[in-house]
């Protein structure tokens, strides 16, 4: 049972709860999410509490992450994209902490659930749509009309509309699949270590090979965890930029 690499993705209720026929139990996933929010909030509020001109290490970390997200927004969405700074910063930190928390052995990986990543991606796209209509009114629909002769538009407008609605899908699937694949791979190789170790004879010595591989994959997963959070946030900025400035393609 412990050898099943998919076991780690199982959601188990901690406090069973049913409201109006819906299962809204507090699960192991909810617990990790609460922990993520608590740790991120504590880290950021504690690290900037001293407000020194020459920052301590902790304050420096908070300042660097601020500047990192700021640079990301300004390069992708320009200066008026900064009004979405709280949104993008929160999103980036939530995904980043989820990915990092998931790397701690035994901790549930929140972003390995399509329900979570799709909810985040849907939030992004809804924000884009609302912003677009608030800023440009009905003119926001020009986003779907490329510069082309009229007969071609009958073909191109549906393509643009489909392309727009692929965004929440590709955004969420990329994050979810990366985390799912990485963690499954880790568990599969860990299974090899146990199986080889218990085999006896020369095979026991061979168990060191998948063990070394796990170390290497863990390092790679650390990179992937950061990169995927970064990609998620950058794409959010790029989509927001389109809603703000309506670039013709």
């Amino acid at each position, binding site marked *: 049972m412990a050898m099943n690499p998919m076991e780690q993705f199982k959601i188990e209720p901690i406090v069973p709860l049913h409201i109006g026929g819906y299962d809204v139990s507090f699960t192991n996933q909810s617990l990790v999410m609460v922990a993520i929010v608590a740790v991120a909030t504590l880290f950021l509020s504690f690290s900037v509490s001293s407000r020194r001109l020459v920052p301590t290490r902790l304050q420096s970390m908070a300042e660097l992450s601020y500047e990192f997200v700021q640079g990301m927004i300004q390069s992708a969405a320009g200066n008026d994209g900064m009004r979405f700074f709280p949104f993008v910063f929160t999103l980036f930190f939530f995904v980043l902490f989820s990915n990092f928390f998931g790397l701690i052995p035994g901790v549930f990986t929140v972003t390995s659930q399509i329900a979570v990543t799709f909810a985040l991606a849907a939030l992004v796209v809804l924000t884009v749509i609302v912003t677009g209509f608030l800023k440009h009114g009905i003119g926001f629909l020009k986003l779907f009309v490329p510069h082309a002769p009229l007969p071609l538009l009958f*073909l191109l407008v549906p*393509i643009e509309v*489909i392309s727009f609605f692929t965004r929440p899908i*590709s955004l969420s*699937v*990329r994050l979810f699949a990366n985390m799912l694949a990485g963690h499954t791979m880790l568990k599969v190789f860990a299974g090899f270590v146990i199986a080889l170790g218990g085999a006896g004879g020369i095979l026991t010595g061979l168990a060191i090979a998948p063990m070394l591989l796990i170390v290497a994959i863990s390092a790679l997963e650390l*990179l992937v965890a950061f*990169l995927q959070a970064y*990609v998620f946030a950058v794409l959010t900025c*790029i989509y927001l930029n389109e809603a703000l400035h309506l670039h013709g393609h």
Partner: protein
Amino acid sequence: MSHQTPEPEDLRRLQTRLDEVRRREAAKNPQSAPTPMGVAFRFGTEMIAGIAVGGALGWGIDWLAGTRPVFLIVMFVLGAAAGVLNVMRAAKEMTEQAAKAAKGAPSVPDSEDEE
């Protein structure tokens, strides 16, 4: 504060030195470029998502209008086109980002402080 307050001039010099070190470090390991698997994953999801959304939209229209399978077929093809469009845009985006990362500007203006 117990120790003396650093002059703005000192801070600026420190920043210039930091920038130099950062640039040297950045030149040493040209990271920031996505891994080949990341690129493949990106393109793969964009393409699949296009086809899936196109197909789903077509199926939905057919279900509403009772015209199965006309729109399913049409939208599936358009969805594939949208997938290709997505991949092309993603590729363009990546090229632009790689070009931007290659430059790398200093975070503080050298001597005059104009902002």
